[in-house]
């Protein structure tokens, strides 16, 4: 046997539960001396310098793959490799996180030990035969393309130029600013910088490439021009419609825009005046309108003015958030919330009478006189938003703005490395908010483009080119822009620098041409074979657990002492979307009682639609099973968040109670005959 293929199993005995469940004797039973597994028992294998110690041991003992067995694995995020020592290749790693599966919440020591044993065996099967972990270096262009023309675009350019990044500013619109005028000094400073390439009146034709090597094609009057960049920052403003309050008010001099209000306050023109600011006229205004209204009103109140703010809802997330709201009210801004009925305004020569019903005091009508009515222009997505979303192959939010409300990516990131959204992508641009976003992007860029090179793990996805029909399914389904058609060779190219290794492509490929690097189909099948063996007298349920949700929730459950059912075994996956039809059927065939796939909630998936894909896939497989008479009750999909350990326990317990007993797979029975 090639000595490099030994597997190292590192048992953390510092934890008494682990030590008790996995004694030396027990381990000698599981891993006989003449096998390919070496066991190392030690006080701790999960502290800060553990990876280095493991690396050294692997070098001296010629171990190529490792399994770490501890209460949990650090923060719950399982690394896939440990760096090799002294030029050795990196070591593929699997984790047997005993606590995550609550092996020791089990009250009965025999059950505890059996579960711990099963978990370790699964981890060993998983890592056996893992491909070596390799790295490659690619050149990276450090130029950053900023697309847009508002505050955020100019602030971003300024900050990047100061940090030493060359910037290409592709101005898709004239610098206007919506509620906040754009300061000309900022524009001047940016435009006059030697490292700035500035292009005005731009229409984007295409956005291609990946981090370190983007390629932006722009339509010009003469010919199409191409701008290369290492990163793209989208900072395009949303559109504003003109104010339309009705014939009488539109003609009146007493109605001004929110922007005008802000400027007049600062210029001291409204110091003693009373003003009524009306937001949420047609439903709900965007966050920027509410926040701008509050900051102008606060300033106005501080100068002796009397602003009254009429609103349905004031969103307070973002840079200033609640503090601005509190300060405004303390300074004397009166806020009145209305609900179904819009307030009424009757203009006269030099003032307006406002009539309104407050949502709390519904049994009375309130009225007041005001010198001016201020109303923000309604903000809507522009055609540019939809177009850029198409070009970037990223979704829009429910209202049609760029950068959907996915918590994994807000406030500035996207599902594509090197692509950022700031400023007015999902709202009008708020300079205070933009200032924070710009810093967040800068930090991100310093990590992604630290120098002229990017170091990246290679072969994240492995393709069998013979099986590839170039059907483009993987290309269409990849949320991360990491797949590119290679027309010359009639196959797909996988871009390691852009790849998030979610595994969705491997599951959707109709030709089964793709495998996850470091976790091949045969490795998965070996894991499932071990997992599906009878456990404590029952056929176990296999739960494919997404690492961003279920695995973390299981860890939280273990830490909180919440019991998870004995009969459920976890197989962790990077994204629920990776769990293919084949894996589900395999799990059943190997003899498990049932399969649960747990992914993130809709709109919480790091890979955008990975969780949704898994849900739909399971419905199809369930239908198919129903059709062949095998019953659909044995497979389930659930969505979950990392902070829902009790819900996880609930989901698993219900599955254990409700799924039919026994198994439907034949292969499991055969395997049992071989295992004595």
């Amino acid at each position, binding site marked *: 046997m090639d000595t490099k293929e030994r597997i190292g199993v590192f048992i953390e005995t510092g934890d008494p539960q682990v030590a008790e469940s996995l004694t030396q004797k027990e381990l000698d039973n599981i891993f006989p001396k003449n096998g390919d597994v070496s066991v190392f028992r030690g006080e701790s294998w999960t502290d800060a310098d553990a990876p280095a110690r493991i690396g050294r041991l692997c070098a001296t003992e010629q171990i190529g793959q490792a399994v770490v067995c501890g209460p949990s694995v650090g923060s719950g995020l399982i690394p896939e490799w440990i760096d090799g020592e002294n030029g050795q290749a990196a070591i593929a790693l699997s984790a047997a996180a005993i606590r995550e599966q609550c092996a020791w919440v089990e009250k009965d020591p025999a059950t505890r030990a059996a579960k711990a044993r099963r978990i370790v065996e699964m981890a060993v099967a998983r890592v056996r035969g893992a491909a070596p972990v390799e790295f490659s270096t690619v050149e990276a262009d450090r130029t950053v393309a900023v697309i847009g023309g508002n505050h955020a675009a100019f602030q971003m350019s300024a900050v990047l130029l100061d940090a030493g990044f060359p910037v290409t500013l592709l101005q898709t619109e004239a610098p206007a600013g919506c509620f906040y005028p754009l300061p000309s000094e900022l524009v001047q400073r940016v435009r006059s910088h030697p490292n700035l390439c500035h292009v005005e009146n731009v229409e984007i034709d295409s956005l291609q490439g990946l981090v370190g090597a983007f390629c932006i094609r722009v339509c010009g009057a003469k010919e199409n021009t191409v701008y290369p960049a290492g990163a793209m920052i989208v900072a395009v403003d949303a559109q504003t419609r003109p104010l339309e309050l009705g014939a009488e008010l539109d003609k009146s001099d007493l109605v001004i825009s929110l922007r005008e209000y802000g400027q007049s306050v600062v210029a001291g023109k409204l110091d003693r005046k009373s003003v009524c600011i009306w937001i949420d006229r047609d439903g709900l205004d965007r966050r920027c309108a509410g926040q701008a209204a509050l900051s102008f009103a606060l300033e106005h109140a501080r100068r002796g003015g009397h602003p009254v703010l009429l609103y349905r809802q004031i969103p307070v997330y973002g840079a200033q958030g609640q503090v601005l709201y509190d300060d405004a009210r303390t300074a004397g801004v009166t806020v009145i919330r209305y609900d179904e009925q819009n307030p009424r305004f009757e203009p006269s020569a030099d003032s307006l009478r406002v*009539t309104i019903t407050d*949502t709390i005091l519904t049994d009375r009508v*309130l*009225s007041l006189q*005001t010198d001016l009515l201020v109303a923000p222009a309604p903000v809507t997505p522009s055609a540019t938003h939809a177009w850029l979303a198409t070009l970037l192959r990223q979704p829009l939010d429910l209202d049609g703005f760029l950068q959907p409300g996915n918590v994994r990516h807000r406030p500035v990131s996207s599902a594509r490395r090197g692509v950022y959204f700031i400023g007015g992508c999902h709202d009008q641009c708020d300079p205070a908010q933009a200032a924070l976003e710009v810093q967040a992007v800068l930090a991100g860029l310093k990590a992604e483009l630290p120098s002229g090179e990017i170091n990246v793990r290679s072969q994240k996805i492995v393709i069998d080119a013979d099986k590839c029909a170039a059907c483009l399914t993987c290309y269409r389904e990849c949320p991360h822009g990491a797949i590119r058609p290679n027309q010359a060779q009639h196959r797909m190219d996988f871009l390691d620098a852009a790849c998030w290794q979610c595994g969705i492509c491997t599951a959707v490929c109709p030709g089964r041409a793709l495998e996850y690097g470091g976790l091949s189909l045969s490795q998965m099948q070996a894991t499932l074979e071990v997992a599906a063996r009878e456990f404590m007298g029952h056929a176990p349920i296999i739960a494919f657990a997404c690492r961003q949700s279920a695995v973390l929730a299981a860890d939280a459950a273990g830490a909180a002492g919440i019991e998870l059912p004995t009969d459920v075994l976890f197989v962790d996956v990077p994204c629920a979307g990776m769990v293919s039809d084949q894996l589900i059927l395999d799990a059943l065939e190997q003899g498990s009682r049932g399969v649960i796939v747990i992914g993130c909630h809709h709109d919480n998936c790091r890979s955008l639609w990975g969780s949704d894909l898994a849900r739909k896939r399971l419905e199809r497989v369930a239908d198919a099973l129903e059709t062949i008479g095998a019953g659909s009750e044995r497979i389930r999909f659930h969505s979950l968040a990392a902070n829902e350990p009790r819900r996880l326990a609930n989901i698993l317990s219900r599955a254990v109670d409700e799924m039919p007993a026994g198994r439907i797979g034949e292969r499991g029975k055969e395997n049992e005959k071989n295992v004595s």
Partner: protein
Amino acid sequence: MLAENQAIRLDEIEATPLRDVLINESDWQANLNYCQNCGKCLSVCPLHGYSEWDPRRAVRMVLLGMEKEVIDSDFIFQCTTCDRCTLVCPMGVRIGSLVTRARSMRKREDVPGGSQKTADLHRTIGNNMQIPTDEWIETIDWMKEEVQDDIPDLDFPIDKQGADFFITINSKLPQYYPMELQCIYKIFHAAGVSWTMPSIWWEGTNYAMFAGDLDTWEYTLRQQVKRVEELGCKYMAYTECGHGYYATMAGYKKFGIKPKFEVIHKVNLYAKWLKEGRFKLDPSRNPQRVTLHDPCNAGRKAVLEGFADIMEDSRYVLRHVCPDFVEMWPNRENGYCCSGGGGALISGFAKARFHYGEVKVDQIDRTEAQLVCTPCVNCFDAIDDLAKEYQRPWKAIHLWALLANALVFEKS
């Protein structure tokens, strides 16, 4: 929806003294501007649902300048001043302050019920019941004689210069429940401390606070402090009273009174002495099932204001003197008004009291207790009123009664 001509013209409201003082005086700081209209306050308010009034509505109206209606409303005198609203407010708005301040803006003759009159009596002679000094001394001595039948060596001086403890008493005691005085004597005697009964300014209640009569409130506090300092006592042993204790502690802070002595609530003293082993107890003398009502003013409101509360100490003592003590739920800071808070016993809104008192009745019923320990004279009366109104077999009892009953005195 009301017609336009009935609209309230917010811009025509001239003076907003209540709003101004609440927002500007840090002492009364209610931070009304932080109100989110979330409604948590009204969800815990005993008066919620009784009329269209609730704390949130009152705050809203004051903020918009419609404060006259608030000051003239029955709500502010129906309010129990339990401060459950303040406890739960996520923005830290001190809604309770609004009510007390609003009360203070009513004219004297417009204060409902007997609170103002009672405050005036307190001011003139030093106690609410207008008991003259000689009558008071007679009652003290009479009760002393009764106790001396069983405990001959029990004695104490009146107005003793330099005694450690100055005792305050609710004037209801000598007037209606003089026998309770005996319990107090027994406890102090068993503790073996140096104490004295004062002949004047011994009153433990303060109805001026309920009436919103800030001037009388301050006056009566200062007079009492003067008396204690004249006698040179180290401690004022505060009677089992909720609002009086609160009026004193919060009042000292509010009016900037810095006494040369320390105020300690009797319940805190009982617990302290019990821990020090000064009492010999026979809890079998209290066989009935007992539950505990936490008076708001010496519980939740003490915690909110930052002075010593009696909640844990009450329980500590009860566990030692009652073999069958059960908690009602909710309790402690989350407890519920006895139905007599905020001056409600004499402000004339009996219907409201008995309406929200139903919750209290239900709480007590569930414990299946025969006795409700209430370390507060007003709570005591309120609970007995509820028992009568709802025809329940349980009744109120003071902590001093249970403790005194369990005390074992050696026969000399």
